[in-house]
């Protein structure tokens, strides 16, 4: 089960420069406290973890709770060290997993 993602990573960067990474993923983040129209509790269905790796090395990890808004959005920073791949991985309830990649050229 994969969800739509939107990743914003600069295509090229100067070595040693700090770059901003923005990620967005479509997910309802059902918080598990709401009831449906017949009064039955809607079970929790959220993304619980988001990890970002830069050429295999972990640079950012977030643990998400029901208090994160639907379609989780994150902005964070990293130092552009080498050309390569920045990989993103979201995992959540009910076996939810989505991966995305972005390539970066460092000069």
């Amino acid at each position, binding site marked *: 089960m994969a969800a739509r993602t939107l990743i914003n990573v600069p295509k090229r960067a100067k070595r040693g420069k700090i770059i901003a990474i923005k990620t967005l993923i479509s997910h309802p983040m059902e918080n598990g406290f709401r009831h449906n129209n017949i009064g039955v509790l809607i079970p929790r269905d959220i993304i619980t973890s988001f990890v970002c790796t830069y050429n295999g090395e972990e640079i950012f990890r977030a643990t998400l709770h029901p208090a994160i808004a639907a379609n989780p*959005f*994150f*902005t964070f920073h990293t130092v552009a060290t080498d050309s390569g791949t920045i990989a993103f991985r979201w995992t959540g309830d009910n076996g939810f997993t989505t991966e995305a990649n972005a390539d970066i050229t460092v000069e």
Partner: protein
Amino acid sequence: MPQHTPADTSKVAQRGPAGAIRPNRRAFLAATAGAGMALVVRPARATPTSMAVAIRRVVGDAQPTPGKVRLNLPPLVENGNTVAMTVSVESPMTPKDYVKAIHVFAEQNPLPNVVSVQLGPRAGTAEISTRIRLADTQTVIAICEMSDGSFWSDTVNVIITLGACLEDS
């Protein structure tokens, strides 16, 4: 129709068909209305105590010092379902001195934890943004953990006009 004074209404209410004394209707209604109010179930809420427990789980015995962290939230929020939040920490972010983690807690949400983020020296700057849910007007706390093991915090009061939905929407 003749006007009843409070004195004679109580007299009428207390005389039943068989002349037996019945409870005053007005008193009965007042009593049952009160009972009905007491039965209204409130949605689960994190309390300052449960937030303190959640914070204790993160910081252990350490006491977070106010400073270094800046929690940026709008002071007045119209819709608690999506509140843009930025947390930044003053840190050189070198391999010797960097921010290890940032934790955010909300006092009046059903669960006190909002988000926990692990950073490293490779981040360059310790600044993150995300969008959170806030159930009610409340205090939000950001706590950061430095590589030397110290904890720093920032507290912000947020006024919410429409809280994040806990009930059916």
